[in-house]
């Protein structure tokens, strides 16, 4: 076993684990021997800024950001794909042209949807 090339790795691994566990074990033994545990309501509180937490953590946030995400996607992805499409247009097959059309229609659908939701209205 000691001839195995992985033996030093094993030794290092054991040393590493020991290095991590020894202080924890020492602290645990110390606490058990000398220092009694003293939990309390303040100490066990989750929030630690001096104030008491108020209200419920399970509240709903309005996810207004998804609108921006969709509009961004529509315009940005469109621009990214349209440029190579336009450059290679002359050499494209009919199938490729149709695929691109479907893709564009999908994006336009997003735009129509945003228009219907009146996201594009400047107020």
């Amino acid at each position, binding site marked *: 076993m000691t001839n195995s090339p992985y033996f030093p790795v094993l030794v290092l691994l054991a040393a590493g684990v020991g290095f991590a566990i020894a202080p924890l074990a020492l602290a645990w033994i110390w606490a058990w021997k000398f220092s009694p545990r003293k939990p309390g*309501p303040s100490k066990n509180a989750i929030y630690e800024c001096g104030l008491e937490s108020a209200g419920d953590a399970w509240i709903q946030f309005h996810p207004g950001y998804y609108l921006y995400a969709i509009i961004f996607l529509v315009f940005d992805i469109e621009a990214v794909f349209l440029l190579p499409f336009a450059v290679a247009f002359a050499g494209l097959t009919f199938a490729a042209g149709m695929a691109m059309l479907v893709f564009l229609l999908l994006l336009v659908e997003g735009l129509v949807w945003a228009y219907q939701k009146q996201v594009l209205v400047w107020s």
Partner: protein
Amino acid sequence: MDEHLKTELRKQGIVATTLQELYNWGRKNSLWPLNFGLACCAIEMIAASMARYDMARFGAEVFRPSPRQADLMIVAGTVTKKMAPQVVRLYNQMAEPKYVISMGACAISGGPFKQGYNVLKGIDRYIPVDVYIPGCPPRPEALIDALMTLQKLIDKQSLTGADRPRHLQAEAPSEFIVPRFGAHDLEPPQNPEVWDAPLVNISLAGTDDAGKH
């Protein structure tokens, strides 16, 4: 172990120590203060932690933003009654062993604002204070002196026996009453477990109510 023998051994290059000494040595040289300031005194505390006064020399430069990681609470500044519950709660949330330095006239007694209706007349009404530093504000040297005083106090603490410090006694409390906002004052106005009203002979009794509240 005999002190004389110990110094003799040290001269020969042999260090003899006890578990208690090691423990206290470790604790006193890594007092991490809680990162908070309440008023002008905090500026001096900040100065003490910066390069010119360099509290890092005493192992106390690691100002912790969380009470769970702090050992030392430096009450630096005016404790208003609005702020007192938060200060006490932060103290409660610190892990034992924990120490308090009451820095400046305000934290000791209310200082220049003692007559104010909104100022707590000393943080020692709610939490046990280990070292007081007078001054308005105390200079950074004074804070360093307080730190060294605290280090000496920690060095003297014993690990076992009846006079061992609070954090080693199972019955001793680690949390203290957090005052609530009452109709006119904090309730309770002081914690009788940690604060005894000083007996003073006020000859103006009856005509002057300073010091009563």
